[in-house]
């Protein structure tokens, strides 16, 4: 079996950004793969650009890292020159500039999310090619294929912060269940007027889906619990 350990690092990924009544919730899985091998099972794909703007990265790990590094650098200078926090729209536009002008070389889909005093919570999706689309919610990465139907049904406007985060965690967890390129833990970042909150949901804290079983320490525990003659027919 060829694990192809020399394949480029790619974040198969599931990434999500959702607006709610007062801010945004960003969510992602934590798997980074090289071919069939999981190079990092606890990656952090939600990267800070400024105090109030974060980006979810998918696709090529290298491309998404370097793009977000450049944009963080530009935004830092922009914030100093502007004298106040950068807006989410400007952050999205800088990402767009790099994504569009290097479209032939980059392979990364990004979701920019944050809060600013002018527009409140905003989410911008920037898929391959460099299109910018402002959306009430955005999904991306290979795992997102399994979530279009879910969001069509489950999304509603003006959710509370708790509802929005629960939706995001549920969605990433569902995608992890079906997408081999997504896995690990669910990370979320909530951004609003008050500030930023990072949360972490390891696999064992998530709901079980179809044909998934309750994790055990060992078969021995099952055998012992079931009684003196568990394997008798």
């Amino acid at each position: 079996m060829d694990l192809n350990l020399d394949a480029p690092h790619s974040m198969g990924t599931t990434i999500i950004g959702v607006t709610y009544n007062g801010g945004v919730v960003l969510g992602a899985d934590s798997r980074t793969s090289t071919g069939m091998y999981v190079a990092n099972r606890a990656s952090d794909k939600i990267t800070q650009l400024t105090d109030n703007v974060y980006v979810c990265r998918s696709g090529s790990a290298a491309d998404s890292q370097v793009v977000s590094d450049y944009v963080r650098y530009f935004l830092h200078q922009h914030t100093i020159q502007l004298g106040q926090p950068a807006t989410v729209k400007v952050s999205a536009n800088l990402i767009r500039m790099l994504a569009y002008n290097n479209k032939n070389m980059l392979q990364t889909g990004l979701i920019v999310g944050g809060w600013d005093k002018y527009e409140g919570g905003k989410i911008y999706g920037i898929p391959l090619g460099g299109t910018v689309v402002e959306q009430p919610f955005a999904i991306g990465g290979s795992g997102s294929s399994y979530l279009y139907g879910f969001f069509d049904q489950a999304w509603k406007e003006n959710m509370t912060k708790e509802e929005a985060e629960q939706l995001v965690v549920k969605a990433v967890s569902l995608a992890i269940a079906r997408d081999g390129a997504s896995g690990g833990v669910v990370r979320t970042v909530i951004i609003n007027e008050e500030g930023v909150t990072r949360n972490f949901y390891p696999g064992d804290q998530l709901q079980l889906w179809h044909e998934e079983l309750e994790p055990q320490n060992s078969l021995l525990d099952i055998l012992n619990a079931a009684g003196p003659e568990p394997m008798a027919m």
Partner: protein
Amino acid sequence: MTFTIPIDNGDAVKNAEADSQRTLYPYVTGTSIVAIKYKDGVLMASDMGGSYGSTLRYKNIERVKAIGKHSLLGASGEISDFQEILRYLDELILNDNMWDDGNSLGPKEVHNYLTRVMYNRRNKFNPLWNTLVLGGIKNGESYLGMVSMIGVSFEDNHIATGFGNHLARPILRDEWHADLSFEDGVKLLEKCMRVLLYRDRSAINKLQIAKITEEGVTVSQPYSLKTFWEFQAFHNPTAGAEGSW
């Protein structure tokens, strides 16, 4: 300054130099635009879809935009390239306004500008992957034309792009006539858009119709069309021929 790094996966890097300025394929695309001249100006219809390959990924994309006071631009093809073209046109209109000479760019001029841009990009093998439809009216004269990604450019009384070329054009050739009223124009466009909805896989049932007259531009709210499925033949098409379709 140049030092060669031995790279195994060098193909991507070596070819990057040569191909760094070539758009090879579109990612997020819009489907057909259909437009007609009518009594008071031009009507242009498009759906609000942005497809990502076969996935109907985005359902709220506006593919028809007002340009200055006298023109409407509709685009099918790669949305990021359309967004870039809108930036070019922003600059064009801004510079036109800065002259402050009472003149303003009409549809003919905007069409010409776009034709030059598209053709020159085509010559460099780096096209903007769009088919653009430019409609407008200035000083009582209505104008409707299109430019393709290879720089083919022309004017006509009715225009259709993408699947519309095959499905809408025959309808327009048959039923378009000069001095259509607004109502008849809208009905004609809706007839075309309904056929596209039935037969174009990348069409979605959410459309906008934009109108440009001497008074200005109006883009309708997004709306959906009713579809008809009650043909007898649809109810039991394989009765008597099981396994057929």
